[in-house]
């Protein structure tokens, strides 16, 4: 056994608070260590070259690199020693940067701890066994969850790259939040005019299969080989027959149904097509409001439908599909304004949300683009916009910024002036956050060219006074109290994770933060990957994002999928659990605890039942090994012997 130890300075990151030369000197005394040195930047090209040469020169067969987190460079060094002819699993990394030099300032104590940690790594590397990857085939189909702008972009890019795409959207039409917007900042493009063609492309692309009004029920498998169960929710309308003529909607007697598409700004019919540009343009019954479902009699839509598409007996349908990669673009949600009682959220009709105001501005919205107060349908002259309504507020559970409100408020203030020239907009803000191309100019335009009055300060209370809404706030620049009597108040309510985001994450085995947004592999270097191989993120499912960022990320996720699928075979990670069939008693406790469903029952020739690990499904978490009562299941590269070698070394002082 000839171990080589390489201690990295990482500039002053490690050498600043650890005496690296002493660590190397101490390591030379360890039996089995044939060579130990310290180097300025071990991860650099000359640093790696040094390792390769040392392996040849000194005849090394095991390598320890004491440097940064293995998350950062383990793969780098594995490749390095592989090039020098060693098995890539004959490498151990001792994390002396994140675990030691960055967290302590006492050089003496740090150095002693570093010696211990590197000695442990050396003890383990001497127990390491060579491991070899297996190859498996990739199913080159991709599932995109979410038909908003990010999901559609991802689906189109994948499809244009020649992949078969399944696009699953939970609402009856693709388009997502963007399809609800009137204009987009900072160019004042008509939102649906630029989105509509994409929606049509999605529907007409021969590589894309669209499942609208569908949800993901279950996901099994691993990168390259996922099995998906999709629940096609009952629409009570046979979409193969429905032509989208809208006759049913016209005749439906249930006129006060909640309009999900318009966020309840105005009521809709129980059977409806969400909006004129909907893709697919098919009707759907909302059983919560439909008289046939609520009272058991009506049937008007069935009578008038010229194609006989109505089917009140329809049931959810579950279909199974196989894919090789998944792009999650499930979007965002908005905070329920009832959680903001000081603003009268949900109590006063003339206090509405930004997205509701967007629907009032929209030509295909319930007011046909005329801004009318919900209470009395009159044109408001004084409009107050409240930014950060619930966001950047720990007491509301949303400490983060919602990213795009500053911009859409500026846009809405501009559009308000266009719609009602004699109107006056007030914007209560905490900070103006508009750091994009043309963004700051845009918020300035709202103030300078369109006369929106920006007041820096938070609103404390909103209450009705006669027909007006009084907005009580502070001007923290002037240091005075401000009261505005408004006709309409628009709350830029906080952006939250999409409803059900956490449940979807559990199904996908991807991590999410305390707010329900999905967590990327690395915030800077792996922004669209998750820690689950083959699952990629796009759009606001990962955190509040505006349209350009969502589209960019949608394309990035597609690029990742195309790169993944550029190989016909993928290599599995051999650091997985293995069962010793001689000592396994077949209790199958490991099967019960495995979070990935990687353990299966296996009958040996003699009829003995043992556990069996499916290598490609196993994620190497090690839960099974700590569960096994007889130690028969071991995680390769982290076996009991390997870990005990580390512990023994630490205790032998």
């Amino acid at each position, binding site marked *: 056994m000839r171990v080589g130890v390489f201690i990295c300075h990482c500039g002053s990151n490690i050498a600043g608070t650890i005496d690296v030369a002493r660590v190397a000197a101490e390591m030379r005394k360890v039996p089995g260590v044939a060579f130990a040195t310290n180097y300025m930047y071990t991860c650099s090209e000359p640093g790696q070259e040094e390792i390769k040469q040392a392996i040849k020169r000194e005849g090394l067969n095991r390598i320890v690199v004491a440097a940064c987190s293995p998350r950062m460079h383990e793969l780098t060094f594995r490749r390095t020693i592989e090039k020098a002819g060693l098995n890539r699993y004959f490498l151990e990394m001792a994390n002396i940067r994140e675990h030691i030099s960055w967290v302590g300032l006492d050089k003496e104590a740090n150095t002693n701890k570093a010696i211990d940690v590197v000695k442990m790594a050396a003890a383990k590397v001497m127990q390491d066994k060579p491991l070899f990857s297996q190859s498996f085939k990739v199913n080159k189909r991709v599932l995109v969850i979410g038909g908003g702008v990010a999901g559609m972009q991802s689906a189109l890019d994948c499809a244009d790259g020649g992949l078969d795409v399944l696009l699953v959207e939970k609402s009856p039409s693709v388009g997502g939040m963007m399809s609800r917007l009137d204009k987009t900042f900072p160019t004042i493009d008509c939102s649906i005019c630029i989105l509509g063609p994409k929606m049509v492309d999605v529907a007409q692309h021969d590589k894309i299969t669209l499942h609208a009004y569908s949800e993901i029920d279950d996901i099994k498998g691993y990168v390259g080989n996922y099995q998906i169960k999709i629940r096609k929710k009952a629409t009570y309308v046979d979409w193969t027959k429905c032509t989208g003529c809208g006759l049913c909607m016209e005749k439906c007697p249930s006129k006060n149904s909640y309009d999900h598409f318009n966020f309840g700004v105005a009521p809709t019919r129980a059977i409806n097509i969400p909006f004129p540009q909907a893709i697919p343009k098919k009707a759907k019954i909302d059983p919560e409001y439909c008289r046939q479902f609520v009272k058991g009699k009506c049937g008007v839509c069935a009578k008038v439908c010229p194609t006989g598409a109505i089917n009140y007996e329809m049931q959810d349908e579950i279909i199974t599909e196989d894919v090789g990669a998944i792009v999650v673009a499930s979007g965002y949600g908005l905070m329920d304004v009832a959680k903001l009682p*000081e603003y009268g959220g949900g109590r006063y009709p003339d206090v509405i949300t930004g997205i509701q105001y967007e629907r009032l501005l929209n030509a295909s919205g319930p007011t046909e683009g005329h801004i009318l107060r919900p209470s009395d349908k009159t044109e408001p002259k004084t409009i107050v916009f409240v930014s950060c309504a619930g966001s950047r507020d720990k007491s509301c559970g949303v400490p983060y910024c919602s990213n795009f409100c500053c911009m859409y408020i500026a846009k809405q203030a501009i559009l308000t002036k266009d719609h009602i020239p004699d109107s006056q907009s007030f914007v209560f803000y905490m900070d103006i956050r508009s750091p994009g191309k043309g963004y700051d100019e845009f918020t300035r335009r709202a103030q300078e060219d369109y006369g929106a009055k920006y007041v820096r300060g938070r609103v404390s209370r909103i209450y009705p006074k006669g027909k007006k809404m009084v907005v009580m706030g502070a001007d923290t620049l002037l240091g005075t109290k401000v009261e505005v009597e408004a006709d309409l108040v628009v709350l830029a309510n906080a952006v939250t994770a999409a409803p059900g985001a956490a449940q979807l994450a559990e199904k996908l085995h991807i991590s999410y933060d305390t707010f329900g947004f999905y967590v990327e592999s690395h915030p800077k270097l792996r922004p669209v990957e998750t820690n689950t191989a083959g699952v990629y993120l796009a759009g606001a499912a990962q955190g509040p994002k505006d349209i350009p960022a969502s589209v960019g990320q949608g394309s990035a996720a597609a690029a990742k999928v195309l790169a993944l699928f550029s190989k016909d075979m993928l290599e599995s990670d051999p650091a997985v659990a293995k069962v010793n069939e001689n000592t396994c008693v077949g209790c199958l406790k490991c099967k019960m605890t495995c979070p990935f469903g990687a353990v299966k029952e296996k009958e040996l020739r003699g009829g003995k039942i043992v556990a069996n690990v499916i290598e490609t499904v196993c994620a190497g978490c090690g839960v099974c090994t700590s569960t096994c009562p007889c130690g028969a299941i071991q995680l390769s590269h982290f076996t009991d012997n390997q870990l005990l070698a580390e512990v023994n070394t630490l205790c032998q002082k």
Partner: protein
Amino acid sequence: MADREYAYYSGCSLEGTAVEYDMSMREVFKALGLTLREPEDWSCCGSTPAHTVDHVFAAALAARNLSIIEKMGTQTVTVPCPSCLSAFKRAHLGMTGDESFKEKVNDLLDEPYNGGVNPKSTLQIMVEDIGLEAVGNKVTHALPDLVVAPYYGCILTRPPEIAQFDDPENPMSMDNILEAVGVRVSPFAFKLECCGAAFGVPKREMVNQLSSKVLSMAIDSGANCIAVACPLCQQNLDLRQSQVNSTMGTNFNIPILYFSQIVGLTYGLSPKALGLDKLIVSADHIVRSRITVQEMEQRKQAEIEKEKAAKAKPKKDEIKAEET
């Protein structure tokens, strides 16, 4: 509603300026079948002056009373004054949540407080322990012309982590109690707006301005009476109403009743026993407008018939027109 026993900490204001709150609360609780026991030798709760100086000392003043109540063997103390309640809850939560704070406070006390008393406002007792249905069942009288603006004041439900009761921004408990006894409640937006609190002495001008806003908002909301649950709010709105009128050039004449007085009136209790004669702005017309529930029913019936007759009338006219 079975008989229940509560410790009752009235505090200094209910002995003096708010004696009618004390009287009416006792009467209403008696009518609801609750026994109130006053702790012996109770002392100041700490209130405003103490907690601005020293939190441990302030908690000790409240905890002394809590320790006496603990010895009485009653688990819940009802505290009508929000200021006392806040002091009690702060002391209780501090001493049950923080061991070192508890030690510091107990060092100052003759008898230690072990955290066995639950301080609740009278509103909380009525909503949570008695229940709105039981509160409504005792009603014998109606106040047909009354529209009440329920005014909670700033500290009854706040801060939420201390008060742990009702909504800190849009409380509904008093609204619900008043509606349960058949009183009409106005949509009052200034439920929690500050009345000026204890600034009546050092900055009277400020109190006048703030109180005037509360009063005018109540009237704007269509109310002809304000219901309160805080002695200081009552004082600022009632006692100082003429002050507000003279400095602000207003002409308010709106009675400020404790919610317990209104509940008492619907229970048919005598106005004298409820201390209604102790109000500065007269509530006589409210008392005079009181009728029994039966009378109210008859009136309603009569109104319905009148409406029916009014609807029927045009038909007769039509017939006449046809005849001629």
